[in-house]
């Protein structure tokens, strides 16, 4: 059934309900569809309205769909996804023109047999997309197109398997004194989407006494996917100690998942320990044939408790075969908000070739919610000859300017070594008393062997009349430092 509704009055009603008249926009209602189909009734509708002032050409089509942990939609537009979804979902009409204020009803029909063949057997899922383009191209350099996606979750006839399990429980707190949030990763292992029937989190102190029992907020979960369900706890008191949380989620009335537990520690009253860290700046090592190779990395403590990460660096050859494992550990505790360099040496070196190094560091404690792992990987090359990272500042001047004009440094660096490097640093502006009056950051810039590159950018600050000094400090390839200085005048 194809119905074209040119009911301007309805459009005006919709617009008055949902906003002002604006240009080039579209509206869709319903914009989220939960439908149940049977062999006798296998279709439903949504409505597209032109909320703008110009005529629009609308294309309607279906794409695949999944969701992430927070319920965000992943629109799947790969060839295979589109081919599958169009076997199940058909739209009518697929293309139409809407004048300003017009409304079009679009019929969505589900091929139940195809949906069951593709699976899952209890549900069919699509992101129904409506793409609007101006009917008459206004040209220009950037054309902006509006597209609205409608997540569509269809319950198919036939037996339903409503099953699920908890895959992870963790505890977080935005800042000391805030509510404690218990995150429960729940996987739908059934054959259709459903919203779990609640859930419970029981919190016990280190004596095993129950200190809280709180409900779990639930959301719809598609089959085969995971959602993060949450429970919030705002305790009147939260003394120092180790606590356990035990979570269950209701699948259907009277049926719950097996419980899953996790520990968390309170290190100060109202402050939940949250170990969190990561490997930053794991740079490819300078590696010469059969000579010791030093791997260096920086571990950053982003949590709120001291960390002492330790683990190993695995070296794999080009066939992904592990050929060396070197232990690596922090020399001392890394305090929250700081970073520490960690290093490990492969004494015997490696033959010439291309390799991958994988750093894996474990940190945290079981009583803080378990041991966590930070991982990073790099690719590096072992060269026949010695690698030389070298550069030269070939020009550094700052032309004198009138007061109020931008300061424009001329800084040229040449790569005089035998390997490409990245350079970064800053230019510091100092007055005649040696006091810093401004800084020009130099972002990371690649410089190839033999290449000369201009660095720096104009500084827009205002300096009073006087004599100034500019000091350039550069770091080459994270290992070598170059400096240069020059003077300039700010005139009236």
């Amino acid at each position, binding site marked *: 059934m194809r119905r074209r509704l040119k009911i301007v009055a309805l459009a005006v009603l*919709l617009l008055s309900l*949902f*906003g*002002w008249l*604006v*240009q*080039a*926009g*579209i*509206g*869709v*209602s*319903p*914009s*989220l*569809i939960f439908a149940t189909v049977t062999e006798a009734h296998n279709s439903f509708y949504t409505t597209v*309205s032109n*909320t*703008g002032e110009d005529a629009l050409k609308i294309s309607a089509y279906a794409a695949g769909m999944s*969701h992430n942990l*927070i*319920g*965000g*939609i992943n*629109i799947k*537009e790969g060839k295979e996804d589109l081919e599958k979804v169009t076997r199940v979902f058909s739209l009518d009409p697929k293309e139409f023109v809407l004048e300003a204020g017009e409304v079009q009803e679009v019929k969505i029909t589900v091929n139940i047999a195809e949906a069951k063949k593709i699976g899952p057997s209890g549900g069919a899922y699509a*992101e129904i*997309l409506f*793409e609007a383009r*101006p009917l008459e*191209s*206004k*040209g*220009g*350099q*950037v*054309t*902006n*197109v*509006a*597209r*609205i*996606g*409608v*997540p569509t979750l269809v319950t198919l006839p036939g037996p339903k398997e409503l099953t699920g399990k908890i895959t992870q429980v963790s505890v977080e707190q935005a800042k000391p004194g805030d509510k404690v949030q218990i995150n429960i990763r729940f996987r739908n292992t059934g054959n259709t989407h459903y919203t779990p029937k609640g859930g419970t989190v029981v919190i016990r102190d280190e004596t095993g006494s129950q200190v809280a029992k709180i409900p779990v907020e639930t*959301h*719809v979960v*598609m089959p085969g996917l995971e959602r993060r369900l949450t429970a919030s706890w705002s305790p009147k008191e939260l003394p120092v100690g180790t606590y356990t949380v035990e979570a269950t989620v209701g699948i259907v009335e009277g049926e719950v998942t097996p419980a899953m537990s996790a520990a968390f520690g309170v290190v100060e009253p109202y402050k939940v320990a949250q170990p969190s860290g990561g490997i930053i700046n794991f740079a490819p090592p300078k590696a010469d044939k059969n000579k010791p190779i030093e791997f260096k990395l920086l571990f950053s403590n982003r949590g709120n408790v001291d960390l002492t990460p330790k683990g190993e660096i695995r070296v794999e050859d080009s066939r992904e075969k592990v050929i060396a494992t070197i232990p690596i550990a922090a020399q001392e505790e890394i305090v929250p908000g700081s970073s520490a360099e960690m290093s490990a040496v492969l004494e015997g070196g490696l033959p010439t070739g291309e390799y991958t190094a994988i750093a894996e560091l474990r940190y945290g404690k079981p009583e803080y919610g378990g041991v966590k792992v930070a991982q990073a990987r790099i690719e590096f090359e072992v060269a026949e000859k010695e690698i030389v990272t070298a550069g030269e500042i070939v020009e550094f001047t700052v032309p004198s300017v009138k007061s109020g004009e931008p300061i424009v440094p001329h800084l040229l660096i040449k790569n005089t070594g035998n390997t490409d490097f990245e350079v970064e640093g800053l230019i510091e502006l100092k007055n005649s008393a040696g006091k810093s009056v401004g800084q020009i950051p130099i972002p990371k810039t690649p410089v190839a062997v033999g290449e000369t*590159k*201009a660095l720096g950018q104009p500084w827009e600050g205002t300096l009073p009349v006087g004599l100034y000094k500019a000091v350039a400090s550069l770091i080459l390839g994270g290992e070598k430092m170059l400096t240069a200085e020059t003077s300039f005048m700010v005139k009236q």
Partner: protein
Amino acid sequence: MLKKKNITVILLALALSLGLSVIALAADGTQTVDANITAYLALTPPDAISGWALASNANPAHGDNQQDTAGNGTYTSNPGVLVTSNTPYQLAIKCDTPSTGTAGYMNKYDNSAYSTTAVTLQEPFYFEFSASDGTTSSPASTWTTVTTTDQTVVYITDAATDDDGFGTTVTYSQPAHFSDQRLGGTATYHIVITYTATATL
């Protein structure tokens, strides 16, 4: 005997039915009305951009030649991208795949079509965004190259927007080299940016 039995059954049924009717009438006379709002989502992208003068330099970088989409067009209150919704939603950005040239870059365009001989700017097209309304779980934006697959830039977790919608300000940047070709006639460098808004679950 049989007739008597039938009459008894009929009378009993009648009495029961009357009794039930009395019970129904004896209720408190209220009517339950349940209703809900239909999910709605409207999206207005920025206006098309024309007459964008790109300045060249020897070392172009993202952040050069910025084009703010806010207030572009007739409506000065247009924040760039405007979404009105009564469900939480997300907003994504992607670009077209040109018939000639390179995706993610501006390519020569004339007479409402890409030039059959590709001419492409050397630097990619960048965008930066900021959600001006609503509660978002999105990270702060940095200059990002646009791709042909959706990049979700904003998750709005509010149950509904304001009546006049929530805005997301988007700024474009197109660096240009001295060695990029200046186009003659009516030709311009062109790209199509698609904004996709969808309700989240």
